[in-house]
């Protein structure tokens, strides 16, 4: 299947700030998570792919069309849900979403019909003739989502769609986003700084840091990669560390919550269990727990970027 997004050497600067630094990407038709801290370059990448920002260098193709020369056609087949609260107050949801459908080229009659259908799909069927100014944050997010998919795009860019939502609203929004791809068959680029959201919704991830793509891969591959062992010991920890290192199994790091007695050992092969047991005996420490875990998105992020404060593994 043809890639939904192809990017070659994309560079974008804002005066002295390098927002995108030579990005190369080839992304399949999937639910793609765009993960990065605030200011990593996610929104700039989306704006450039929509043809809204002109790159200094490089080129991009979205849904098979060149963003530089075919920007209008690209936007005809792509939806966009911005992070900001970008809705008119004094109009009804049905009017506005219908207008947005027409702005994507749908005839007036079809646009009105599609607006009603899509608002029903996002759970605003009953409220569609109410003025948007009376809507809650969650409802407004749904209107933004509805306008992004009303013209039946091939691809939809969702820029931080769960921003500012309470846990319940966030859960409902994630369900909707997941449904857009799984049930409606619309490819999704889901930009977020929340690991958990991307892990739940996406099947492919692109991690951006400082305007560069640090890694890009299917999330399904994480489970098949070699995992890690989390080891907790009590006693002469330094001696235990030294013996393990001498035997070729250095302790990589402590856990995220900073428990000083817990260590992570890469599980290269099955022999590691015997080595840990023998090292514990030789160092005279008590082995309190030994459990394995497969690589998670968090590990992938930490392994590539480190621990920036803005990226959260919770609900943001």
């Amino acid at each position, binding site marked *: 299947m043809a890639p939904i997004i192809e990017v070659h050497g994309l560079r974008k600067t804002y005066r002295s700030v390098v927002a995108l630094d030579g990005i190369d990407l080839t992304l399949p038709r999937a639910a793609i998570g765009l993960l990065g801290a605030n200011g990593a370059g996610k929104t700039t990448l989306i704006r450039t792919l929509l043809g*809204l920002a002109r790159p200094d260098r490089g080129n991009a193709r979205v849904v098979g069309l060149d963003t530089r020369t075919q920007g209008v056609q690209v936007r005809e087949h792509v939806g966009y849900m911005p992070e900001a609260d970008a809705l008119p107050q004094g109009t009804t949801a049905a009017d506005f979403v219908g207008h947005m459908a027409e702005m994507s080229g749908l005839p007036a009659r079809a646009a009105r019909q599609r607006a009603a*259908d899509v608002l029903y799909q996002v759970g605003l069927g009953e409220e569609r003739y109410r003025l948007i100014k009376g809507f809650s944050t969650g409802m407004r997010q749904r209107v933004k989502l509805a306008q992004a998919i009303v013209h039946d795009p091939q691809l939809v860019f969702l820029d931080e769609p769960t921003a500012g939502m309470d846990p319940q609203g966030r859960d409902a929004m994630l369900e909707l986003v997941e449904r857009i791809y799984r*049930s409606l068959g619309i490819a999704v680029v889901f930009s977020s700084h929340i690991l958990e959201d991307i892990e739940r919704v996406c099947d492919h991830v692109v991690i951006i840091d400082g305007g560069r793509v640090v890694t890009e891969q299917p999330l399904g591959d994480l489970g098949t990669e070699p995992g890690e062992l989390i080891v907790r010991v009590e006693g002469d920890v330094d001696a235990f560390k030294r013996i393990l290192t001498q035997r070729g199994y250095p302790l990589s790091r402590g856990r995220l919550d900073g428990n000083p007695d817990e260590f992570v050992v890469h599980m290269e092969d099955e022999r590691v269990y015997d080595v840990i047991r023998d090292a514990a005996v030789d160092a005279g420490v008590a082995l309190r727990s030994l459990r394995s875990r497969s690589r998670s998105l968090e590990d992938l992020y930490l392994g590539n970027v480190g621990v920036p404060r803005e990226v959260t593994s919770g609900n943001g």
Partner: protein
Amino acid sequence: MATAEPAVSPPPASSPSEGRYGEVFDRGYAHYTGERLGRRQAFRSLIVYSMKRSMGIRKSWTAKILPFFLYLAAIIPVIVMIGLTALVPQANMASYPNYFLAIFTIVGIFVAAVAPEMLCVDRRERTLPLYFARAITRFDYVLAKVLATAILTMTLSVVPVVILWLGRQLVAESPGQAMRANVEDLGKVVLVGSLIALVLGTAGLVISSLTDRRIVAVAIIVVGFLILTATANIGYELLGEEAEWARYLLLISPSDLFGSLIYHLFTDSQSENGLISDAEFSLRFKLLYMLGFVVVGILFIRWRYAPKD
């Protein structure tokens, strides 16, 4: 969320008339397979939507008050003029210059109400990213707003005066003959009305592009028109005889500019042309100046809407 079965529902096999009473249909998501009209449709939709919103359509009744009274104020003189012409044909009350001068201020107020609604609200409500992520360019957006403003303004500056033209012909002894004889006047009133709409509309939008606040834009447009007119007239009175360049001051006064154009087109005598006729600008110069103003205004607004990167 568990992966659901695709909600894409096939069209019902039977027509609605064949459905059973009370049958429940699955309103699942259906992909759009119909016509896509692209940029042309987006452009047209933006014009229509902007016009509707500016006129308060599908908004509260308070949003409709001002346009209603302005239309009333524009149409009443037409009715009065046609009525007087029918009753006293010799009086020639229904002259086009009189009508244009009578409604010029009304059109100015209308533009001050409509233009900010066209631009300020989109910026204030931050809907611009949604528009620019659609099948239009930034220039399309600006052009659509200019056209929407001009078309709406023409409903005040062209439509009533065309009705006046029609009324004048209908009260003549031989309406058919009068229409044929005065078809040139029809062209002139449409030209003047359209230029008023384009020039004032563009000026209103240029000012509206400078602020997000609608009320501020309204105030600047009204006060700006007054200040420009006063500056032009006072400046010309004070300097007109001493400095040759002072006559160009009159070009910044919309009322003097259009007053001059109207008399230039509709009267044989140049004696009543007002101050600007004294400044001896030719008809061609005035027309080119107005069209140039509109083009520069559009380019300025486009510059205001250029991406900030």
